[in-house]
């Protein structure tokens, strides 16, 4: 009886940890750290289907063949229940190795002998699964299963909350039409990046992008086709910048790129590459294919000595105006207001 009370207290602690943690990796780590007090196991795993993430928290001496069996076993769960098989190549594996069994090493030939692999099920859908694994036969009993399933239910609730929170967050910072960041996110990001640039002295570039004669697309082919063009151009922009750069829809057919750490020369090369890419891309509108071009304006810190983010934006906007005035389909670098 005393043992059950002790185990219930550990279980309560684990459930509390899961419900008060908002980061998935942290949930797995803190749960994994407490599980050895409840179960004698070699590996604990959590697969989150939406994020295509598989976390394994396991004994550091687990041989790779054992890990492989655990992974395969977990991926089987959705298909056993009639869902489409998991595309294993798209799943990211995060392995946390810990000393779970003091003074004990696993046999390098150890195989998976006992396991639980439970679906994480909420509101009738499978959002992932959790598993508890051992290299010992009959390592778990009915009470272990009860406790482990309770942990699974708490994890389901935590993942659901995380997914809801993520989608709300996404809606707040992404443009629903083009899937790039929205103006609100850009305003926040440019403020933070400008401040960082002022403090550290690292370069910061801004590129304003405008689709040439976009009104003609809307007038000729309709707004639905125009929206497809916006989406396609946004995708081209996203695929043309670096991982830490920001692409945002500034408004209408105008986009903006924030390139932290990029000097003027590098920015100019990136902008020219994007211009050429758009120029050579065929855009499908209705039953036909058309060519489009874009104009781009660049401003940079410290080159242009802007004193605020507002000034940096104005400079890029001014350069864009010059690109338009100069005949469109070109990249212009801010050259002072006198050039106007």
């Amino acid at each position: 009886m005393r043992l059950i009370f002790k185990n219930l207290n550990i279980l309560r602690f684990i459930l509390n940890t899961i419900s008060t943690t908002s980061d998935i990796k942290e949930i797995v780590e803190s749960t994994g750290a407490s599980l050895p007090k409840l179960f004698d196991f070699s590996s604990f795993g959590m697969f989150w289907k939406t994020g295509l993430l598989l976390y394994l928290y396991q004994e550091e001496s687990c041989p790779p063949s054992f890990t492989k069996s655990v992974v395969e076993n977990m991926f089987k769960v959705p298909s056993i229940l009639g869902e489409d098989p998991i595309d294993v190549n798209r799943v990211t594996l995060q392995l946390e190795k810990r000393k779970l069994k003091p003074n004990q090493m696993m046999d390098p030939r150890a195989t998976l002998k006992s396991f639980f692999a439970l679906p994480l099920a909420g509101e009738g859908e499978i959002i992932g699964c959790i598993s508890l694994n051992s290299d010992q036969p009959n390592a778990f009993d009915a009470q272990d299963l009860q406790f482990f399933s309770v942990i699974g239910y708490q994890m389901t609730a935590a993942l659901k909350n995380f997914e809801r929170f993520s989608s709300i967050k996404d809606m707040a910072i992404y443009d629903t039409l083009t899937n790039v960041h929205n103006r609100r996110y850009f305003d926040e990001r440019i403020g933070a990046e400008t401040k960082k640039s002022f403090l550290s002295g690292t370069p910061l570039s801004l590129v304003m992008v405008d689709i040439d004669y976009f009104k003609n697309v809307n007038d000729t082919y309709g707004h639905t086709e125009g929206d497809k063009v916006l989406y396609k151009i946004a995708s081209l922009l996203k695929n043309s910048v670096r991982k830490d750069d920001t692409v945002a829809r500034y408004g209408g057919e105008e986009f903006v790129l924030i390139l932290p750490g990029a000097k003027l020369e590098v920015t100019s090369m990136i902008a020219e590459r994007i211009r050429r890419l758009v120029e050579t891309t065929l855009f499908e509108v209705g039953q036909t294919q058309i060519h489009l071009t874009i104009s781009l304006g660049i401003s940079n810190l410290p080159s242009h000595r802007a004193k605020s983010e507002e000034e940096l934006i104005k400079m890029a906007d001014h350069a864009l105006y010059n690109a338009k005035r100069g005949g469109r389909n070109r990249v212009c670098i801010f050259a002072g207001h006198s050039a106007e």
Partner: protein
Amino acid sequence: MWSPGCEVASTVREDKGGKWSSDLVLDLYSGLLMEIWEIVSALIGEAILALLFLSAIRKIGEKHPFLISLKVSEEGIVLDRLKEEGQNLSPLEIHRGFQSLINHLFQLFSALAEGVINKELYPKVFPKVKEADRIISQR
């Protein structure tokens, strides 16, 4: 409806003609399913179990379509519609459908928790499945 402790053999009565009617076979298996639900939900919870039942019904229902009338949710299993519609089926057909369903459920339990669930279920459920088998084969 099933109540704890009731034995399959005592719930199944011969009808006046001395034959096992479809509704008696349905009663027999509804008792069994309820018992499986009681035992397994205590181990893995209602949400996961409902998912397993739904998956099993979907799979076995392809061959035994009358099973699709089983209504499963986290609250449990409801057989009312199946009992209404099942009266037109032969007892053997009902028996085979439920037997396949239970076998498939056992396979799912085994795939997810190795022998732990089945170890709890076997002593209570397996004799009744065998008994049902015996009763039907006596017809």
